[in-house]
């Protein structure tokens, strides 16, 4: 069972590396940001997998905090990518 967990954690890491291709190829800045979100979700998966071993319960709290910090980066990105012109609530027509 230990090998299965560690193998799966390694597999998820490979997933993150595969996401790098999207960073390189991504045409828009949003594509590159999507891989940051991939880090968040897959990173939490790796952390809870490694946390299941003996004596590593603290990793589960790390995963919890990591899951909570991911949305903060999203809000920061939305503020950066959109700027103040499309603040929430301003339902203008999207520019061509």
């Amino acid at each position, binding site marked *: 069972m230990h090998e299965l967990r560690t193998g799966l954690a390694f597999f998820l890491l490979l*997933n993150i590396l*595969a*996401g790098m291709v999207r960073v390189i190829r991504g045409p828009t800045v949003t594509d590159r940001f999507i891989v940051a979100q991939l880090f968040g979700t897959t990173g939490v998966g790796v952390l809870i997998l490694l946390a299941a071993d003996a004596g590593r319960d603290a990793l589960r709290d790390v995963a919890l905090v990591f899951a909570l910090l991911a949305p903060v980066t999203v809000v920061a990105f939305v503020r950066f990518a959109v700027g103040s012109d499309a603040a929430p609530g301003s339902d203008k027509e999207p*520019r061509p």
Partner: protein
Amino acid sequence: MSPLDFLSAAFLFGGGAFCLAGTVGVLRFPDVYCRLHALTKVDNLGLGLVVVGLALQSGSWATALKLLLVWFFVLISSAFTCQLIARAALRGRGAAPWGGRREP
């Protein structure tokens, strides 16, 4: 390997498969909005299956509930993350949604 271990191994494999599907979706889909779906929906399900697999073999209710809490937070954050990024992409830099034509 008790039946519980088999069940949790099955959940872990399912979770890994969905995480792979999510990553392939992020790489292969034609435009930002499809990739967002692949990322936030599919990877969440993969994480959920991994969480259930680990909760089964964790042996203590406290650990299982904490794992479910982690997944619950990721679910909530992904829900509004996808909407925010999609609107930012549409409004901000105007990433045009894919029109259904087959790009090379």
